[in-house]
């Protein structure tokens, strides 16, 4: 069985190399007659076919519990349900690489299929690049990360119990789908450089793929954060951990890319930017994979045993940057932009600043990840926060001002008129925000007097006001777009419908920006003003402690046994500061007997403007129970805003005509 899987990968590699060769010979700069293009396109399908076969064989290993597959034995055990056994496919390094490859080859095959009625040179060049990417990935799998190794054991070792959670089941494939789709703009950018076609054709062909990729990247980050919050039991969702940072890199790159695409099509400018950003986003995908898989993250240890992987990644990076650098240099003149920077006060200028800021953020994260290897210094979460807080607010401001400006040159009067309402709303909101901000500080002090307030708290206050401006500006744009439609004779419903159906890109984009503003409000509250309190209690019914004016009264605990785990659930009566009884809090301490590993089931009382997060951390040496209570203000804004943001992209991605083939 294992041999069959390996053979499928070898055949896929052969198909990939033939596809690259055939596409190179036959497409060139001008293309070949139709009958000659059939075979290379079939080769692209063949890669997909063989990779699918390899996936099915591995999947069979998991479903049928074939532990002679080393990978199956290392990542699953017989007592796992079918659902989790299937998800174990991507629980390890080799399997997730295979899944990623499968997504890439699926995307390539779909592009080949959708574009096979009329062969165009751009697409055949792009398919050549995608086949080359797959050849590189296959080379890695055949030599360094073979998922079809034969095992010496006969029983499965199982999976880390903390990963058995729906969000963690979906998180890796979602991210890998995003990674895979970022290959498409990269391939089309190289195709544009190879053919010298600087028209928006390559952008039109890859924009929707990029948007869907961005959607998956956002979803992946969201799922990871949600899992960390619910399962890891430290009451946070983001800690500037290298793994988290790695997931942010492609997202930042893709964000910059999408905005460059927009301007490329609208204005025929930012051409070199768009090409470079396509490469940059793809490069960030490679770096993200390298950070999580190449040994960087495990920097507690050393690079031992991973030299080959290091060499591989170095080769990939040199190839990607070398080839694109060379091509871009050759086509520098062809990709000259016409209108750029006619005025400081223009949308073009804001797009430019935005791009610089996004690249800066990615580079900081990248340098932060590699610094420990170079200077033996680590970049703490404090540095990232100190950079991200002001930059996030500036970015949000730029995003909200941008649509109020015009391309080219902005008429100051027009700009003033557009900015008037959101500006006034923001200014007026500054008063209630001030009191709310002060109340957050007071809340932190009352719950835990020893907790230090953030020194840059004023930034949080400014952020609240800027976010209000952003929300008002987004709403104003909706209003004016719909009014415009109504003035041309449409009814309200038709105008709203028309705005969403006929210009889904715009409508979705603004919903995304609205969501982002709400996320920022949530981030400020839940990152700067989260307060935590650690308490110990005797195991005695009626023992209590208070957090500020909230009171937690212990009601006892209950021990239950599940498969492979013992669950100790404590019960607390919770009374809030107004004397109202909330629902009982039931944080639990879990002991996984198989892996002899503890886990914590935090209990979260979710309220609209704050979460009350409670963890039972076990028993100390004097037989006291240890608890931690966290108040997370505005955290629900993070989740709600994220959902809105994702919804916006879905609206933008939905094809304009139902049933029309995706571009």
């Amino acid at each position, binding site marked *: 069985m294992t041999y069959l899987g390996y053979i499928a990968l070898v055949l896929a590699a052969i198909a990939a190399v033939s596809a690259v060769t055939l596409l190179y010979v036959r497409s060139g700069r001008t293309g070949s007659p139709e009958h000659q293009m059939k075979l290379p396109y079939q080769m692209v399908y063949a890669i997909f076919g063989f990779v699918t076969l390899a996936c099915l064989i591995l999947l069979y290993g998991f479903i049928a519990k074939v532990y002679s597959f080393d990978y199956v034995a290392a990542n699953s055990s017989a007592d796992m349900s079918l659902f989790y056994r299937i998800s174990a496919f991507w629980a390890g390094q080799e399997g997730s690489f295979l899944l990623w490859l499968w997504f890439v080859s699926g995307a390539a095959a779909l592009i080949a299929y959708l574009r096979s009625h009329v062969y165009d040179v751009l697409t055949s060049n792009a398919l050549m690049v995608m086949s080359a990417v797959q050849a590189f990935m296959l080379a890695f799998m055949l030599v360094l990360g073979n998922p079809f190794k034969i095992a010496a054991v006969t029983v499965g070792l199982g999976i880390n119990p903390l990963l058995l959670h729906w969000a963690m089941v979906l998180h890796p494939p979602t991210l890998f789908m995003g990674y895979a789709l970022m290959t498409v703009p990269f391939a089309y950018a190289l195709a544009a450089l190879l053919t010298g076609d600087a028209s928006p054709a390559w952008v039109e062909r890859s924009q929707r793929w990029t948007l869907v990729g961005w959607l998956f990247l956002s979803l992946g980050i969201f799922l990871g954060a949600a899992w960390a919050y619910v399962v890891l039991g430290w009451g946070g969702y983001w800690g500037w951990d290298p793994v988290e940072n790695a997931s942010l890199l492609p997202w930042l790159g893709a964000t910059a890319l999408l905005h460059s695409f927009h301007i490329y099509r609208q204005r025929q400018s930012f051409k070199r930017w768009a090409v470079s950003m396509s490469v940059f986003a793809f490069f960030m995908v490679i770096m993200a994979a390298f950070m*999580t898989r190449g040994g960087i993250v495990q*920097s507690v240890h050393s690079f031992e045993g991973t030299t080959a992987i290091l060499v591989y990644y170095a080769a990939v990076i040199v190839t990607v940057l070398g080839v694109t650098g060379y091509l871009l240099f050759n086509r520098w003149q062809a990709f000259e932009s016409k209108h750029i*920077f006619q005025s400081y006060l223009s949308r073009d200028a804001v797009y430019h600043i935005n791009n610089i800021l996004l690249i800066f953020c990615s580079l900081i994260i990248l340098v932060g990840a590699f610094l420990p290897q170079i200077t033996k210094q680590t970049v703490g*979460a404090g540095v990232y926060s100190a950079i991200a807080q002001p930059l996030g607010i500036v970015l949000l401001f730029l995003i909200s001002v941008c649509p109020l400006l015009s391309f080219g040159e902005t008429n100051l009067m027009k700009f003033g008129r557009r900015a008037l309402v959101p500006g006034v709303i923001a200014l007026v909101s500054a008063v209630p925000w001030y009191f709310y901000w002060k109340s957050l500080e007071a809340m932190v002090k009352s719950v835990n007097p020893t907790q230090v307030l953030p020194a840059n708290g004023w930034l949080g206050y400014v952020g609240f006001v800027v976010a209000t401006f952003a929300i008002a500006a987004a709403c104003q744009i909706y209003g004016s777009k719909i009014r415009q439609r109504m003035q041309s004779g449409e009814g309200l419903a038709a105008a709203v419908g028309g705005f969403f159906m006929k210009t889904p890109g715009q409508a979705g984009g603004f919903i995304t920006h609205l969501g982002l503003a709400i996320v920022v409000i949530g981030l400020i509250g839940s990152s700067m003003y989260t307060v935590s309190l*650690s308490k110990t209690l005797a195991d005695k019914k009626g023992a209590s402690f208070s957090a500020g004016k909230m009171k937690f009264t212990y009601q006892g605990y209950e021990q239950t046994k599940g498969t492979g785990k013992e669950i100790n659930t404590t019960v607390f009566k919770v009374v809030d500061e107004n004397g109202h009884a909330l629902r009982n809090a039931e944080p639990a301490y879990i002991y996984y007997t198989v892996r002899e590993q503890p886990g914590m089931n935090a209990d979260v009382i979710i309220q609209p403007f704050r979460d009350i997060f409670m963890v039972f951390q076990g028993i100390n040496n004097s037989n006291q129970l240890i608890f931690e209570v966290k108040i997370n203000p505005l955290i629900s804004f993070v989740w709600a805003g994220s959902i809105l943001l994702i919804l916006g992209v879905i609206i933008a991605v939905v094809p304009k005509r139902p049933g029309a083939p995706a571009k």
Partner: protein
Amino acid sequence: MEKRSKNRLVVVTVIILGLLAILLYSATRGGNNLSYFKTVTEINNDSTLIGKSVRVGGKVIPKTIVKSGTKATFKITDSKNQITVTYNGALPATFADNIQVIAEGTYKKKGLVEAESLVTKCPSKYENQPIVTK
């Protein structure tokens, strides 16, 4: 591109990069920020680190975890030397004997790190490979 457009482009880019440089400079100053990443042995052998921010990784030695109040004290090792770590706050879910941790905080005195943050290895299978110690 006409000359004036180019000038504007350069001016804006330079200003933004300048502001970012200031931001970067101010963010990396101060104590809580860049810390020295050391092994247990390196810390034990370098008394100049006392009082400085350090980040140290090692495996929790079994049966050394003592929890008193909300404070946890334990020893970690790089398989050659050991060092005591104290930590006051929420312990990560996966914290236990024999777990690889990274403690970040102040090197108080010889053999003692007072951690402000404690990270266990992310519990994903990707990093569950056997630990290679030097």
